């Protein structure tokens, strides 16, 4: 199926009443959780995933993806009005967005964030549509050794950029690999790490770990009494939210910069939207004729990072859908969702599941338009969510977590595991262990072990199979990535990037 007919088919799928409603629900929910600081897309998607099992997978995927990119729009509202990022990817928007709001220009800042998000988000979808099919064809040449090396590289990138301490990031990843090993080994039927529990014979459901670590761990970590937020007012009327023509003219390059940088960074595993937004902000400041205005309310300082963090979504979906390799916690959960619904993300995904791939792409075009419409006139309504008391949020998150896990397996044992992983998630945050490598290790652990064992079976146990051109290059790059932090100069650069993300 070529791109034009694929896209037309996609719009036929995405424009059915059911899928359109799923898209609306996803983007509204995404905006809401983007506005609320503390509750992120990975926690929300993980909590809702078990509840989507009864739904049509295409509609469910459209909704979950809507949450993913919708949160990026919502995150800017909190950054601009509260100086607190609703999402980590909106951290940099605080700098100039809040400065603009304090100068009485909250309206144009919010409007520009929505417009830049729309332009770059749409660019990200166009690029996804153009890049994914040829990349999928290229990766058809991959077999077990190439996949193993690719997964090692993905994990190395995530570990490299996940935390201040490389040791802790690696340990978190190994913990994920250990959890992934639990259950019956499919090659030899050996029960591994089951502690004599029948319930563990099938392994630990990814959903329980994701909900426990992200949602329950987040609630436990937020139990500290917080100061009520001091929200700056949103100007009334659509006219007061629209940037001037002069603002739009000043942001011409920021739209291009945010779109291209965001998409390219999105493709790289581990880098993520926070780094994309910081990079585009840095580039924007470097090429600006008025760099002295940055930090004091430059509108390009809102447009570039907000664009980048939205374009990143399209980029992040490229390796997820064409190679089956997620690059972040959220895309790892989306991968788990696809696998649970019976799909196999990888080189044949577009060919085998055109309805899902093209339906998703088309829904993202629709979703971006919906988000622009929602975020301009309704931004004042979303801002009211910031006044929602924490005592209502915490029980709600815990309740949805419990119901989500219970509905996936109808077992009290799984709820006990949820409590355990909730505590693990909290302790990891408290002790500065990054959670992304754990989740990625868990999702990729099983696939990675399978790929390695298949490779070694193909070569009758000889490791030389990993020295074929593609795997050897990928493994050398992965090794270099893990060695680089040992050199002070490179480690300083790595820490600078992570520091920005923190």
């Amino acid at each position, binding site marked *: 199926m070529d791109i034009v007919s694929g896209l037309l088919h996609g719009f036929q799928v995405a424009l059915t009443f059911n899928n359109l409603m799923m898209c609306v629900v996803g983007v509204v929910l995404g905006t809401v959780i983007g506005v609320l600081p503390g509750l992120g897309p990975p926690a929300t998607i993980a909590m809702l995933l078990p509840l989507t099992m009864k739904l049509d997978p295409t509609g469910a995927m459209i909704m979950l993806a809507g949450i993913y990119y919708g949160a990026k729009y919502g995150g800017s509202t909190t950054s601009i009005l509260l100086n607190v990022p609703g999402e980590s990817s909106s951290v940099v928007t605080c700098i100039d967005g809040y400065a603009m709001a304090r100068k009485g220009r909250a309206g144009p800042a919010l409007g520009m964030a929505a417009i830049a998000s729309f332009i770059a988000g749409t660019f990200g979808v166009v690029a996804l549509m153009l890049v994914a099919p040829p990349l999928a064809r290229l990766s058809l040449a991959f077999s077990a050794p190439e996949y193993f090396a690719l997964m090692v590289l993905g994990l190395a990138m995530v570990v490299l950029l996940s935390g201040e301490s490389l040791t802790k990031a690696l340990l978190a990843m190994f913990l994920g690999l250990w959890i992934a090993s639990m259950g019956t080994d499919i090659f030899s039927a050996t029960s*591994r790490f089951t502690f004599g529990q029948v319930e563990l014979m099938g392994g630990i459901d990814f959903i329980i770990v994701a909900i426990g670590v992200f949602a329950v761990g987040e609630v436990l970590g937020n139990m500290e009494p917080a100061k009520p937020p001091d929200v700056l007012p949103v100007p009334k009327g659509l006219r007061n939210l629209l940037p001037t023509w002069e603002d739009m003219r000043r942001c011409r390059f920021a739209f291009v910069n945010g779109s291209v940088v965001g998409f390219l960074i999105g493709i790289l595993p581990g880098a993520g939207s926070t780094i994309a937004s910081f990079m585009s902000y840095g580039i924007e400041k470097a090429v600006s004729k008025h760099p002295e205005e940055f930090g004091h309310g430059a509108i390009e300082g809102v447009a570039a990072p907000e664009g980048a963090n939205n374009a990143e979504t399209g980029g992040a979906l490229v390796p997820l859908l064409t190679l089956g390799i997620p690059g972040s916690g959220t895309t790892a959960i989306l991968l788990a969702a696809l696998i649970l619904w019976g799909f196999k993300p990888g080189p044949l995904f577009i060919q085998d599941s055109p309805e899902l791939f093209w339906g998703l792409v088309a829904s993202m075009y629709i979703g971006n338009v919906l988000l622009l419409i929602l975020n301009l006139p309704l931004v004042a309504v979303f801002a009211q969510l910031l006044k929602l008391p924490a005592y209502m949020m915490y*029980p709600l998150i815990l309740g949805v977590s419990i119901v989500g896990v219970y*509905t996936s397996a109808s077992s009290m044992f799984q709820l006990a595991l949820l409590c355990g992983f909730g505590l693990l998630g909290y302790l990891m945050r408290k002790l500065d262990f990054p959670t992304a490598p754990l989740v990625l290790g868990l999702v990729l652990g099983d696939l990675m072990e399978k790929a390695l064992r298949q490779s070694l079976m193909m070569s009758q146990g000889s490791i030389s199979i990993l020295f074929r051109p593609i795997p050897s290059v990928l493994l050398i790059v992965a090794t270099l990535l893990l060695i680089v932090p040992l050199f002070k100069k490179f480690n300083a650069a790595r820490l600078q990037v992570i520091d920005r993300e923190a």
Partner: protein
Amino acid sequence: MNPVLRSGDFWSGLVLAALGTYIVVTAHGWDYLTEEGPGAGFFPMWYGGAMIVLSLLLTFAALLRPSKHAEVRWKDVSRAITAWVALVASVALMPLLGFVISFALLTVFIVKVMCGEKIRTALIVAICGSAGFYLLFEVALELSLPPGKLF
């Protein structure tokens, strides 16, 4: 207290080293290599070994250079652990009381004790929350909530 004993890195390193040792010892009982290729113990042996090395590195780094940054504020932890114990108690009560009542009790605890709101507010949030979950999941979506002997 000795800064080393307050260090989260020191304790987490020790716990993970113990886990790594357990993984290696357990994996030792499984096939490492078979005629068909790697056995069930191959992969765990490698990551378990790497875990031991890295966690000991973490522990020794905390011993040699105890940093203020890695110290744990136990007062903060106690609040989170209290909430976690409440969650565990609520889940443990579910086979007897069912989701609706157990969740209402958990909500009252969080709103009243953890968030310091009035008991009236806590009761309203708990009743509305439990009823909302029941109506949405049991009635509207026909998904079963954890049942109890009493409800």
